[in-house]
């Protein structure tokens, strides 16, 4: 029991919420890294899970229902993997890179599908779907640029 508690404490110290990690993050980004980004990735994963059951018509119409299901599962997995990546800040950064890039690809594809579905089937734009993309897409895009900045080697001061 005690060993398990120690292990859990050690695991917590490796997460973004421990003092060691928050000390490395600039103060103005604390809220972003500890609350907003994990929550956003969690919601994106939840949206993927939701879209497995409820078919996304724009993707289904362009690529078919099989790809629609694949897209949903991949979105769920990449969203939650990105959440794990940001939870263990800088330790699993390559996992986060991989999942966020995949996430951005999937969301961009979704945006394209919305437009294509609207053009091909002469429908009015799905404002709700576009709103969803507007909520979910910019922050992962910013995070990709942010991770590039983090991964770059720092110059030594002589």
């Amino acid at each position, binding site marked *: 029991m005690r060993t398990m508690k120690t292990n859990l404490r050690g695991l917590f110290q490796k997460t973004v919420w421990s003092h060691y990690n928050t000390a490395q993050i600039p103060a103005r980004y604390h809220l972003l890294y500890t609350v907003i980004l994990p929550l956003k990735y969690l919601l994106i994963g939840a949206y993927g899970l939701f879209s497995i059951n409820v078919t996304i018509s724009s993707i289904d119409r362009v690529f*078919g*229902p099989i790809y629609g299901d694949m897209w949903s599962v991949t979105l769920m997995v990449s969203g939650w993997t990105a959440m794990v990546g940001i939870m263990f800040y800088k330790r699993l950064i390559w996992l986060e890179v991989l999942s966020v890039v995949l996430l951005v690809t999937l969301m961009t*594809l979704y945006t394209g599908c919305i437009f294509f579905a609207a053009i091909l089937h002469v429908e009015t734009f799905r404002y709700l779907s576009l709103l969803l993309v507007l909520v979910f897409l910019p922050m992962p895009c910013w995070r990709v640029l942010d991770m590039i900045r983090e991964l770059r080697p*720092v110059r030594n001061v002589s």
Partner: protein
Amino acid sequence: MSPDVEIVKAVIAGLATVIVAVVGVIGVIVQARKPSKDKPPVGDTGKALDEFNGTQNEFMSLVIADNSTLRSQMKDTNDKLEKMGTQLSTFQRELLDVKQRSENFLGAVRRYLMKLATAWTGTEPMPWPDEEDFHILEDTLPHKRSGTITRREPR
């Protein structure tokens, strides 16, 4: 649309997605290998090091980041200290100059007073005692010799 066509369509679309994602990751890797133009992070990890629970490499990277920051801060402090040292030596020189001028002024006053005394009494007065002579006189006083303060007898 037949199921086979659906599957082929899904596989092609899936492959295209994977290729785009791989290209994105390669782009991130290429960009990440370029050296940063940012300044090194501010060394506020001293407290964090106490609770450190990571690998040796992570520890060393933290220490190196802190070390480089501290070195730049030390350089700034050193520059400031050198400037202050220069200002202090200038001030010291000015103080010595003031001391010298005040001594010259006192000497001139002493000489003028002796000349005045000569003119008034018509005789050459005893030479004005130097500072060292005062010390010698003080050492010969009774209260100095005994170590207790006694009233001097009138002569």
